[in-house]
């Protein structure tokens, strides 16, 4: 692996403003009613003891991606940086990868008729040493992104300090997106 990217989502800092989602739409021209990233929120508890639960939905860039092993034409592939990309030229839109993805991260872009998902803004930003659009836009710095091999980077330091949750860890997909759960505990 050339790079060891990681995206951290801090639930304690997220305010559910959806700026990340809007930034993503602008960056990638995502058609109406489709999303590469969405933050869902739910109010829990009984008044006055209420709390919010946030859930960030996007591609989590698995180390061991089921969408890649399932793709019949290698249109879904993993780069040497370990990121999962889609080769639009050879995608036949069989939708097998969409069904294989446990994170519901993929959808068919109705304008291009190909499967699409978050790519960490690799083409437009990360390949130019910039941070993804959602990370730069986030007003509360709930998102941090970087290379885990750089020991002085914010992601590395935060990863050392915080409790990290990897979504659907039991599936063995080894996501590169990690969650810092709410320190207020879980309300039900």
């Amino acid at each position, binding site marked *: 692996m050339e790079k060891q990217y990681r995206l951290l989502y801090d639930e304690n800092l997220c305010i559910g403003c959806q700026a990340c989602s809007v930034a993503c739409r602008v960056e990638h021209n995502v058609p109406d009613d489709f999303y590469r990233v969405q933050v869902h929120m739910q109010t829990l508890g009984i008044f006055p003891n209420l709390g919010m639960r946030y859930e960030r939905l996007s591609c989590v860039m698995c180390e061991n991606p089921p969408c890649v092993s399932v793709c019949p034409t290698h249109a879904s592939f993993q780069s040497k940086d370990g990121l999962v990309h889609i080769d639009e030229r050879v995608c036949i839109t069989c939708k097998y990868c969409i069904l294989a993805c446990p994170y*519901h991260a993929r959808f068919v872009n109705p304008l291009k008729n190909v499967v699409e998902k978050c790519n960490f803004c690799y083409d437009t930003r990360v390949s130019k040493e910039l941070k993804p659009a959602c990370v730069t836009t986030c007003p509360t710095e709930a998102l941090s992104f970087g290379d885990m091999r750089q020991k002085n980077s914010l992601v590395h330091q935060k990863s050392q300090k915080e409790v990290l949750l990897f979504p659907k860890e039991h599936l063995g997909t080894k996501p590169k997106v990690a969650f810092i759960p709410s320190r207020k505990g879980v309300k039900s």
Partner: protein
Amino acid sequence: MSPMWGSVEQYSTIHWSWAIAIYLFLAGLSSGSIIVALLVKWNRHERSNSSIWDAMIKAGAVVAPTAIFLGLLLLVIDLGRPLSFYWLLLRYNVTSVMSLGVLFLLIYTPIVIVFMLLVFERSVIRHPILAPLEGLINLVKSFHSYAKVIEYFLFVAALCVGSYTGFLLSALYAIPLWNSPLLPVIFLTSSLSSGVAVNILVGLLFFKSALNTESIKYLLVLDTRVILTELPLLALFFIGLFYAGGDAPTAAKAALTEGFWAGIFWLGVIGVGLGLPLITVIIALKSHVYRVGYIVTNSMVVVLGVLMLRYYIIYAGQIYFG
């Protein structure tokens, strides 16, 4: 979970719909009918001169290529980019069941056509309209001495085509209702069931043969045997899901009790597809009355049940996540 902003449509879309359900049915029907035809050819044909066996082989030789052709057509049409389907033939991924399926179909489809031409060799030669095809017919005829080898090869290829559709779904661990090792077995068994039924039906309708009570009884019993294997398999399928980890138990419970698709399962798959044929056979065997009517109804109901099983698995899998 409600989003603050925007549509959540994409998280609950049915990505594989009726076209895939029908393809799974047609692929199963094709492989089932050719497997049954071959078994009859090897085990029954030589010994018995009763023409029902001959009709079963002819039916298999007609149904198998037709079903697989229609199925493949549907499969390509259902792609988001149908005209790019050729990439499937140029690029292979050995870890993808879909790629393996393409390989099986590439072997299976030509052999099934050769088998059809071998079975109908004489009628093809006689037909004046088909005269321009003489070269092709002669080519197929030259394979005649290899008929047995072709049949063995076809049998194995048909087993692959009949079961790969099950593996295609069970490989997806994101979908609890599909991720079961029993799915390929269930699909193969129900394929055989539909193969028996459709061969009987087509054999009776198009290759009119004198039916005696003995062969009716035999066919009914044959049908029943497959059904009696399918019922415990379906029970095991759900029991397995209930003991599986993660979201499987909740998904299985919902799939059996909630909404339209639970109804399809109990009324369509269990009631019409498995229950009705069982009752027909029990009545027929008990009263010792073997009517052609019984066998025709029985066959149609079995085929309908198998189709509904594919529909149920495809839709319930994508709706009930647990």
